């Protein structure tokens, strides 16, 4: 199956093309700190570059996979609107993949391929959610390529992550020797995370990037869902205006 994968959950724009034999190529735009994200201006161009390089036509694409976040709201919308538009135009199925899971999967694959030896069995995926929060989820790699979620995606202050990890370990009854924390949130909040049993690779490690090739791989295995129009961002947070209207701290908000 030929799969086009896209992810825009972080300031990066990533596209990947997975061919029928599983061979996958990726093209990405990683803005430098302070640079404007190129989701609207780069994403479609990256996809086109890959198609041209592999000599694959748009109409040969059989499935589109998109990272649904959580991540930056506008970025997610550009990626998902693009993916939905392509799916509608081509009449192919669209599946969504957690960007946090894709981040963890990418780190695991990189470790298995031997390009980085730091990935162990336990992976914490952390995406910068701005305003002092992160989106995070934790996974256990049982067999190669297979990730079991041990901490469901949350929007949380980074200082609270160690406590959440401890609780997750209690629940599954396993004492985790060391966590590998990856993602732009892990880089930014290294100080809050890099204590004791959490290891954060160096800033320039490719393990920190959400890989569109991972989105392709996860998307290729995913069951076809309820149609492309049901694919929406995992915002994980309500709009500020709604929170203000309800009164901060009232009711079940904010999520944690």
């Amino acid at each position: 199956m030929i799969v086009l994968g896209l992810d825009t959950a972080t300031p990066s724009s990533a596209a990947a093309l997975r061919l029928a034999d599983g061979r996958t190529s990726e093209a990405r735009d990683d803005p430098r700190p302070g640079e404007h994200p190129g989701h609207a201006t780069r994403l479609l161009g990256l996809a086109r570059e890959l198609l041209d390089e592999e000599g694959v036509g748009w109409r040969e694409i059989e499935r589109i996979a998109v990272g649904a976040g959580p991540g930056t709201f506008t970025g997610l919308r550009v990626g998902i609107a693009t993916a939905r538009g392509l799916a509608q135009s081509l009449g192919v199925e669209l599946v969504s993949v957690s960007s946090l899971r894709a981040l963890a999967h990418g780190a695991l694959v990189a470790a298995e391929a031997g390009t980085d030896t730091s990935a162990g069995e336990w992976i914490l995926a952390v995406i910068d959610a701005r305003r002092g929060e992160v989106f995070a989820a934790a996974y256990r790699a049982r067999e190669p390529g297979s990730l079991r979620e041990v901490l469901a995606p949350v929007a949380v202050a980074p200082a609270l992550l160690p406590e959440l990890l401890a609780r997750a370990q209690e629940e599954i009854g396993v004492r985790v020797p060391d966590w590998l924390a990856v993602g732009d949130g892990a880089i930014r909040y290294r100080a809050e995370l890099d204590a004791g049993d959490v290891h954060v690779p160096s800033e320039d490690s490719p393990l920190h990037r959400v890989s569109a090739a991972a989105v392709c791989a996860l998307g290729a295995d995913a069951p076809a869902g309820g149609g492309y129009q049901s694919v929406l961002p995992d915002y994980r947070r309500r709009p500020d205006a709604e929170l203000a209207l309800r009164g901060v701290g009232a009711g079940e908000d904010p999520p944690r």
Partner: protein
Amino acid sequence: MTVLALESSCDDTCAAVVDFDGRMRSNVISSQEAHGRFGGVVPEIASRQHLEIVNLVVERALEDAGATLEEVELVAATQGPGLVGALLVGLSTAKALAAARELPFAPVDHLQGHVAANFLRVADGGSNGSVGAEPFEPPFLCLIASGGHTLLGHVTGHDGFEVLGRTLDDAAGEAFDKGARMLGLGYPGGAALERLAADGDPRAFAFPGSAAETARGGRGARRKAFAQSLDFSFAGLKTALLYTLRDLPEAQAGARASDLAASYQAAIVDSLILRAERALERTGITRLAVGGGVAANGELRRRLGELGVALHVPARRLCTDNAAMIASAARFGERLPYPDYLALDAYATGESRR
């Protein structure tokens, strides 16, 4: 030859199919109702809602037109100005729809869209309502007044216009909505304000910009200079209503609500009419078109009718934000072949095209 267009610059998700000769085949508008409780459009909520239904709106537009994507030869979308997050949903969707089929793409300026609504050929008696099957041809002056913009344009061709005047602060529709809120009419309150004004005396209060105020005279030199300009200003009017309400004894404010509404509405309409009249005089043009949601206002329509010029008021669904007008503009504007448009970005209100 068929154009598919999308528009998502504010809180309406729109798609339309228009033929190259200007025949409108469908015009789907899905208006968001989530903003009322916030007293105005919340950009983040608007963007979320656009994404939820944009593809469905496209599907409906094709269905209504009896068309399929196979038939579409040009895809268009509003590039700006507007709420960037909202624009990006329609623009990204449209670029992807076009790219997958390697179709050409037309980025459209929203205001040029309002002008191009006048170039549509709308079959009489169609479900969308219409005033005539023939397009209104340049040259003409175009008054565009909505919640997002207020301007007077000199239209000499099909692919652009010269701005003669624009608002220096609030848009006319914004002034209607803010006034309505002050009078306790909710949001959006333009139509409610018009209904309340029906029983009121438009000359009861001399609000800034109104003919009643001009009749009473006594303005400063700065205001006189501004009064000669073709630019609009509604911020002072809003403040005047606020002070008037504050200074009225509570018992009177309720009893005089319809007078307040009528006088407030008259000030907005007088301001629009005065500048339209002045622009017609200065250019010597005797043809006038209107666009934008404020064009639905009955008092404005009545006064425009008294100007004694050839007047073109598109059907209501073509005056408010819609994608048929974007498709119409796309027929005459810049057309980029695949893949030259893949990097197009949206631009915000107050920004110029990149």
